[in-house]
């Protein structure tokens, strides 16, 4: 699968990025603080970034690098909007807990 020799085995990158992704998913599911939820989402995105970089090197194809820049840019915009929404939603409350947002019941 991998045409180039890399000093670190690409599978190691894949394993690390899978671990990061999994931690991110767990964070979104388990943590109740909206800021930590947003951070966990960023972690998931960055796991994908790491994979893109590693595979980009492995395939000698810099599409993965470009993709990563794109993702970082979009993630910044996403964080700006996310934090703005957290501020307007949780400012009236002393503590921020995602369980308090329960006017709409699935």
């Amino acid at each position, binding site marked *: 699968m991998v045409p180039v020799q890399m000093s670190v085995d690409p599978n190691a990158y894949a394993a690390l990025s899978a671990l990061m992704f999994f931690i*991110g998913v767990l964070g979104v599911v388990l943590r109740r603080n909206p800021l930590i*939820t947003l951070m966990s989402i960023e972690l*998931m*995105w960055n*796991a994908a970034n790491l*994979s893109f970089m590693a595979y980009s090197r492995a395939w000698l194809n810099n599409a993965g690098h470009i993709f990563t820049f794109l993702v970082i840019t979009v993630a910044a915009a996403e964080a700006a909007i996310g934090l703005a929404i957290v501020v307007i939603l949780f400012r009236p409350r002393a503590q921020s807990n995602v369980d308090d947002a329960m006017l709409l019941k*699935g």
Partner: protein
Amino acid sequence: MGGYLQYVQTLDYQALLPAMIVGGTAVIALLADLLLPRRIANGTAILLGVMATIMAGLYASLSYGVHYLAFGGGFVLDGLSVVFQEIVLLSTLVTLMLFNRRGVSEDRPAYVALVLWSSTGAMIMAGAGSLMTLFLGLEILSLSLYCLCAIARDREVAKEAGFKYLVLSSTASGFLLYGMALLFGATGTVTISALIHPATGIHGLYALGMGIFLIGLAFKLALVPFHIWAPDVYEGAPLPVTAFMSVATKAGALAALARVIYTAIPQPDAHWLLLPTFIFAAASMLVGNLGALAQTDIKRLLAYSAVAQAGYIVAALAGATELGIRSAVYYLAAYAFMNLGAFAVAALLSSDREEGTQLVAYEGLAARQPLLAAAMTFFMLSLAGMPITAGFLGKIFILSTTIHTGYWPLGALLVIGSAVSFYVYFKVIRAMYARVERFSHPEVRPPSQLPWIAVAICAVAVIVLTFVPVMPGDATFFVK
């Protein structure tokens, strides 16, 4: 990547021009808001938006029949992208006419700009030929929608809906992105048509990547079991935004799904990769219609109904036949107008203070406003799939596709789901006609009559689709 991008040609920009017109007009609408007095600015913004969508729609229709790879394959101009762009543009046009409540009018240019931007995103998704373009289009669409949900600051539920949508949709984007990364690892390319399953044996990385990628798409399409966010977000968001979301997001995600199914997974022996998607679609048809049974809020009811309808459309893609994509496009177009029409009726029942989405607001409507009740009945019958409506024809096309390709269990579930949905939609019709004696609900005076135009457009479109079942032949052509 197949072709390295060395020279960007004028043709490339021409391919992207409809999306650029819409996105650029959003900026102009915001500038107009700064320069013009508030009284004129609101009307101007809507007028600009309507003009932009019409211009972009006309320009995009000129490209019908042209096949071109713009930006080194990043943006594909073919029948599929043109047809989906037209559907997105028409739904944007109708959505712009629903912004009639004074409660939201203070920020109306901002609403118009955000709707235009998310429409740009959906249009880019429709023509995405590379995973990068797909991701970028999806995020332009989603980021604008988060703002649109949360912008109505006077409503607590709107902020909550915005937050829920942000968290769940970004998580889905995370899945999508991680799937893309694994697909890139397995194939070494980000061009969608080159993401072909490696020929020898079962490729674990590829299968895992495709699986995660498709889960991300299923989430955006609100297929069961990833539909939990839909009813909450649809209920909390302002009515025109819900209307837009229920059509444009689905159109964008369906275009992406269709392109992946038809170009990246062409071999029949790799179709097992798509099996989970079709199981989600099957579950959506049942859960969506059963969930809609208990709803008393039109927005929630239509949210569950949208889950089921997305299931029908995805079922049409099973087997990747030409008839499949044609019936999917036909049904999506019909669904878009039936759904937007129902939302337009709800907008006409909204006052400045309250949105007319509670089922109670429809009781005795036939006596108060017979024309409006008739329009709503028409849209509901079509959504249910009553014979000789566009909804019925679309379902017949999808049913014959599933039988043709051997995915007949999907067809059977479509029939069962439709049978259940009759009860759902007749609940609305019964409220309008049967309880005429209960005049408890106060008369509602809508702030403007603009949504009447939207109702008329949708009704005419559904009727035209009924009698002229246009199934664009060119939608089947994919540039590799």
